[in-house]
């Protein structure tokens, strides 16, 4: 028996040693950012026209939570979930393609049955997607798929496509908590790292809400998990890289401040510090943010009108430095009871594409031309 026990210890130690040796010394990759033009400048956005709704699947009445990514070919992809109502058994994840100014018909990516078949266990609800096109052209989709219970039983499934998002297969269920791997969700899009990897923003929500970031390597394998700050009232982080090492997170607030929450990392997402909230209202609404290729930042967020409802007004703010924000334009301004929420944003050439939930019935789409006003002499 002693020999057998010793053999187990030796075998385990050998396997772990091989893994530790293969990992080598830890060298954290930098964020993939170009040095911005100096001085830093905020973009100006001009509506391009062609706004509208992404065509829904035939006969499907409800939609929510879109995510955008751009293929190497320049095609824009929008992912969202749709079905008879939120949490209904028929809710599925869909994708549509935008090319030549037109959206394709929606194509189903996954549903409860297809996920259950590939995972080997059941999935109860389907929720938010987050999408990323890796430098090798593969499209990774991270989607919420719950266990037994509501959104607090959420888990995150990683799907991958090798054929430009025409077909997806389940890569894995990401292990993100020890609580039967429940209560972690995704919402906003990843940001790239210099070595081809990326950082996926995520969040925990079971009574306490806190934001997380998951690092992936260029092959799409998770590397590490880090909690963003110590707040228990911030969720749905959107990431803004400021330099190779400095990263900001702007977040939905469920606390008493009702302001967009912030945190900063000075080591490319590995460690975080909470910052004072921004002076932008947030009444439990999701935000989206993006660093533009030629400098400047944009953020989409809901704002409040006196006597209005929390999600009737969707605004776009711009910033030169991701610290001081100025409202730039209204993406949608409805009446009380309207909902324009859960935005997503991507840059494609000199245009900014914005999608959002439109009245929970469809996904809205707006296009803006990106311009940089000349500095006053």
């Amino acid at each position, binding site marked *: 028996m002693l020999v057998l026990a010793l053999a187990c*210890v030796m075998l*385990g130690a050998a396997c772990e040693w091989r893994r530790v040796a293969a990992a080598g010394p830890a060298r954290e990759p930098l964020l993939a950012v170009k040095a911005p033009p100096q001085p830093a400048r905020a973009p100006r956005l001009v509506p391009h026209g062609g706004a509208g709704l992404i065509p829904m699947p035939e006969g499907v009445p409800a939609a929510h939570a879109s995510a955008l990514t751009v293929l190497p070919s320049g095609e824009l992809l929008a992912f969202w979930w749709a079905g008879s109502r939120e949490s209904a058994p028929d809710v599925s994840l869909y994708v549509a393609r935008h090319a030549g100014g037109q959206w394709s018909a929606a194509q189903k990516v996954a549903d409860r049955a297809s996920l259950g078949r590939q*995972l080997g266990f059941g999935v109860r609800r389907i929720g938010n997607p987050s999408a990323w096109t890796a430098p090798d052209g593969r499209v990774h989709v991270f989607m919420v798929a719950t266990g037994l219970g509501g959104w607090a039983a959420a888990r995150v499934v990683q799907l991958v496509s090798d054929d430009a998002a025409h077909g997806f297969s389940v890569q894995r269920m990401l292990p993100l908590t*020890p609580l039967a791997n429940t209560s972690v969700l995704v919402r906003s899009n990843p940001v790239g790292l210099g070595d081809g990897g990326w950082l996926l923003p995520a969040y925990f929500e079971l009574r306490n809400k*806190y934001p997380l970031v998951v690092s992936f390597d260029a092959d799409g394998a998770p590397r590490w998990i880090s909690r963003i700050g110590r707040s228990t009232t911030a969720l749905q982080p959107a990431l803004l890289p400021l330099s190779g090492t400095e990263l900001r997170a702007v977040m939905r607030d469920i606390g008493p401040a009702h302001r967009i929450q912030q945190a900063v990392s000075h080591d490319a997402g590995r460690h975080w510090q909470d910052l004072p909230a921004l002076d932008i209202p947030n009444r439990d609404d999701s935000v989206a943010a993006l660093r533009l290729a030629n400098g400047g930042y944009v953020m989409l967020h809901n704002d409040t009108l006196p006597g209005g409802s929390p999600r009737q007004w969707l605004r776009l703010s711009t910033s030169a430095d991701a610290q001081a924000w100025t409202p730039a334009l209204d993406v949608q301004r409805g009446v009380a009871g309207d909902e324009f929420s859960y935005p997503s944003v991507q840059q494609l050439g000199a245009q900014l594409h914005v999608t959002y939930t439109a009245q929970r019935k469809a996904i809205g789409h707006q296009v803006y031309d990106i311009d940089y006003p000349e500095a006053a002499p």
Partner: protein
Amino acid sequence: MTLPELALQVAWARLAWGVVAAAVLLAALPLRGARARAVAVALGLAVMWLPGPASPAFWLGLAFQQPSGLLAMLCAASVGLRFVDRPGLQVLPLPLAALLLAGGALLYADAAGALSLGLYAWGFDAVQAPLAGVLLSVLALAAAVRGRQAWAGWAVLLALTLHAVARLPTGNLFDALLDPLLWLWALGRCGSAAVLWLRRRRTSVTMS
């Protein structure tokens, strides 16, 4: 962070839930004779390999994902002990139950946001977690060869070996040694031991 292949995880979930089901069946049913017990074990193991939603593993995975390596090994020990007619023996020794209870409370409080220690993320660490795993293996070896409650030492050792070799069940060191069901088992074990201790103390006080 080195994770297991999805196909391996699916196979592990079915096998491990089968072992857990076999242990529960033997504990719950008043079966006499090795043959009846063997049939119950075979049934518990086989039913998990039914396709799709016909498999209880499909629904157990929906709720709990996979059992930890340690829960599966302790259940295997429980099944084995019933075949050697030692059903009254506590498979989960009190010291191990107390460790799991305390460690689990800390881990779950951290995961739920009550603390901010990043313990679960540490369970994926590329250097420190493997070192901790090897250290725990050596301690488990000592318990396994000491003779007293050796099966518990073996269960820990085999769970850690499974984690080191195949990264099962999730690639995280904590998931090899703990899951919510095992934590509840440890809670019940410690709770019942505490009740027994209080009763004995009350009896001894009354007699004196």
